[in-house]
């Protein structure tokens, strides 16, 4: 799976980090940082969850 993150949209809720902290992190101001743009398929559920809870719709997933 391929993950993209739009940092301009991010509102620093940290929800993606809670869902998958090996794929997402936050900078000092809370803006999300993508750690792994191509996570293994075993991480699919948590990454889907991150995208689903992101209030800013900043996370996109391609299979």
């Amino acid at each position, binding site marked *: 799976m391929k993950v993209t993150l739009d940092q301009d949209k991010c509102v*620093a*809720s*940290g929800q993606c*980090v809670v869902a998958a902290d090996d794929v997402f992190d*936050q900078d000092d*101001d809370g*803006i999300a940082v993508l750690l792994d743009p191509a996570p293994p398929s075993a991480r699919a559920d948590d990454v889907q969850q991150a995208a689903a809870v992101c*209030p800013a719709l900043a996370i996109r997933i391609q299979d």
Partner: protein
Amino acid sequence: MTSTVSTEGAHAPSAPEFPMPRAAGCPFDPPPALKSEQELGSLRKVRLWDGTTPWLVTRYADQRALLADPRISADVTRPGYPSPTPLRGASFSFILMDDPEHARQRRMVTAPFTIKRVEAMRPAVQKIVDGLIDDMLAGPPRADLVQAFALPVPSLVICELLGVPYTDHDFFQENSKTLISRSAAPEQRGAAHANLTGYLDELMGHKIARPADDLLSGLGTRVEAGELSRREAAEMGVLLLLAGHETTANMIALGTLALLEHPDQLALLRGTEDPRAVAGAVEELLRYLNITHGGRRRVALEDIEIGGEVIRAGEGVIVPNDIGNRDPEVFTDPDRLDLGRDARRHVAFGFGVHQCLGQPLARMELQVVYSTLYRRVPTLRLDARLEEVPFKHDGSVYGVYELPVAW
């Protein structure tokens, strides 16, 4: 009104009044009339106190879509904005602004709410929680849980984070109460707002003169740099102080009451040491209780087609997250409190760019509270009949004014 065409109800001159009353004896569920509206359709018309008839959005999917839609505005000063009260005494800070100014101001205060910074505060919060429980247990075996525990926990935490002296808590708790009460007269709310802004403005002066390592000092630096006026900084302070108090305090007290009324669920929480299970329980309580029951308020900037209707530019929109979180299409058997379910997609913190800024902090506080209180006070019980508990029907935050408990 006929029952054959579902959209007819949406335009009927007899639109139901909003907010609607809850059912007697059913303090945790959204109003039955609100549920009926959801069954009738996703986009409904309701009538407000001033006779205006904004849209009510009842379905979870449409709620999320609208709250994340850039064609919708949170600007309270726009014509058509569905105001919950006459003359809002509320803070005009960034929650009532649109991007880009909203984003600019919000980003000035996001730093202390990152997951890492919040996790670093967990031991300090645990200490606060344990200390308050020690004090409770050292006294007589009964208390008002709101005053003894539910209010002091978030109050101590947010004061520490902002750099507000906790010794002033009587002053700002009194004024916060008035400010968010729907039954207070507009003048009273205006006075409470002026009191709080004046207090924060003075405090801001101290922070600018002698900066410390806290959020208000950080805002003071922005004021000095000319990025923010002192007035705006004070308004932000009011917003954060208010939001940090009322919401979490009500989640603690109302959550405790809900758990005492659902002993099987309380047992699950008492019996686990797994932080994931506790975190899951917190999400379910957030979904189930919905203390922000007045709905998110917006006004359409353009025509928006959604849920089989067209919201016209300038029309008001109300998004009641309580009913969205009980949407049977998203949550199976939604009116059941089930701490074991996956409730993480709830909209208790709202959705879109205005979603609650303090949610990581709120979650952490609730995780510490729910995993500590019932373990350390295993015989905790309600010291009144449910009907005697005074519920906050009139405020913009739902909860209880008092929670008499014994152990």
